[in-house]
């Protein structure tokens, strides 16, 4: 757990990074992208369930971050602020995909990194390694399918808490809701996930 001093130091460092970016220092923005790209990509992937969509969204998020940097207020952390932008843009993207009849695509092609081998790799291989990987892929797919069955509001809270590990306070700040709402949405979302995944629990 970070101490108050460490938190303050991190905030100060973030403020300086933002200021350098605002002055047009490209290397600072490159650093910002490097620092947050995994976080943004993960969150985008968890919302959209498709690596290509997640990568496209991540690009848009960073462009938005860059364009909106002057509106960043250091009363929240940069991480929370970027989370908020990613979440809002992911919601918009989901709505757009729904309008086009292309909601989340969870398939055996969902292979955003080396950790996720294509399911077909494990078809005829009973070695423990591939089996574990296949199991991991299956769990991810099942979890994402369960998330998909939630309302957007519940999904956001569950992802931010159970996948991203954010505190209730950070979630409330990110989504612009109060902590009580975070608690109730999370509880209902988790209850629904339990129902969906009962056979695995």
């Amino acid at each position: 757990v970070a101490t108050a001093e460490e938190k303050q130091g991190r905030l100060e460092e973030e403020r300086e990074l933002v200021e350098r970016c605002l002055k047009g220092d490209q290397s600072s923005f490159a650093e910002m992208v490097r620092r947050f790209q995994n976080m943004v990509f993960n969150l985008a992937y968890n919302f959209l369930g498709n690596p290509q969509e997640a990568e496209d969204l991540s690009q848009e998020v960073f462009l938005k971050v860059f364009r909106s940097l002057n509106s960043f207020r250091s009363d929240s952390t940069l991480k929370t602020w970027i989370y908020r932008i990613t979440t809002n843009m992911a919601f918009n993207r989901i709505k757009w995909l729904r309008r086009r009849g292309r909601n989340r695509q969870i398939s055996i092609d969902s292979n955003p990194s080396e950790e996720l081998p294509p399911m077909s790799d494990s078809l005829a291989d009973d070695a423990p390694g591939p089996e574990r990987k296949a199991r991991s892929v299956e769990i991810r797919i099942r979890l994402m399918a369960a998330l998909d069955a939630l309302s957007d509001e519940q999904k956001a809270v569950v992802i931010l808490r159970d996948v991203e590990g954010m505190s209730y306070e950070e979630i409330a700040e990110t989504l612009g809701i109060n902590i009580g709402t975070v608690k109730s949405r999370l509880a209902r979302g988790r209850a629904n996930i339990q129902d969906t995944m009962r056979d695995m629990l």
Partner: protein
Amino acid sequence: VKDKEKIIELLSAYLDGEVNDEERALAERLLAEDSEAAEYYNRLSRASGLFNGLEPLTAPPSLHHKVMKRLGVHKSPGLAFRIRQLVRPKVAPVPLLTYAGVVVVIAVGMVYLITFGLMQEPLITPPTQTTGKPAAGTATETEGSPQKSEAREAERFALGAAAGETDADKARIEQPEAEEEPAGDRAAERETTGAAMPASPAEGYAAETRHEAREEARPTITAAARSRAAVPDRIEAELGPIEPSYFTADQREPEKLAEAEGGDPASQFYVSETVTYITERGEPATLDVSAPPGSDANPLSDPSTFLPPRFLSFEFIGSGVPQRSDEVQVFVESHISRTGSIIYMRVIGQRSNAALIEDLADRLFSTRLIPARGEQDSVSVFYSFVAVIKPAH
């Protein structure tokens, strides 16, 4: 009901340690005294553990580069950037050295003309009409003729060479800067991959001759290797364009599937698979999955709802790959949308078990899927499990 909701909320917050002392004491008392609450809490904890066990994903290595490249277009320009923009020509970038070279050549040419031009014979000899064709080495081409273009090209090359222009420079001048691959190109790439696949359904299905006769009799399509090119027109006509990614498993490794299908006699695996679909109008209706009417829940989340109990019974082992001769692996992939649904199934098991697998496949594929209703336009779910198959009692 409200109490139940409160309990659920309390246990959820207790799991995260987001409770005060009073709530913690209440939760602990509840867990000690109420077995139902304790069971719920255990499942909650296991579900949370599944999320926590997910490997964090790494952003694609290209993401950073793409963002920075796009920022070059979208960033709000600073003063230095604006000055560079003013100086920089709007056409394709040309190296400064080339500019310098051109200026030097023009200057030398002008000096030469001023000094000698007015006093010398014309540098270009007038045409000598002997055979009706221009003499070699002359510059009498008509506007737009190939010879003129070649001459211009040679002249430009000479200028470039004089200015120290490299081949790379030339390429840069002649072509706009190569754009990064847009997202849409991935589809084209998939198409390219698909081009390597069988060009017609008949070719794609060649390995499945033993199923074809049976499948012809009903609106079900069996295929080992599907690509966009191999998707039957009938499905496209019913459902509209089908995303190639629906069939990526087969696109990705057609050889492996073909091998598993029986192409390799040494293969110990036997595969039976099918795709079946239903339109919103219910034509043709071939799958029946017991999702509650009006529900948009995924009907495949619980295998017992769609596995027919007749003739064969199943003992679910879990996930993974078949380990024993009587085990099979069943893959179910569903794509549900308002315009229709596609169910893709595959059964894999030991070759010695082929007859049972075929029978299982028949039973599975004779079910029917109810079209999705509700808010979600399209849901795609992949599901697999391993089971032991036995004759039913």
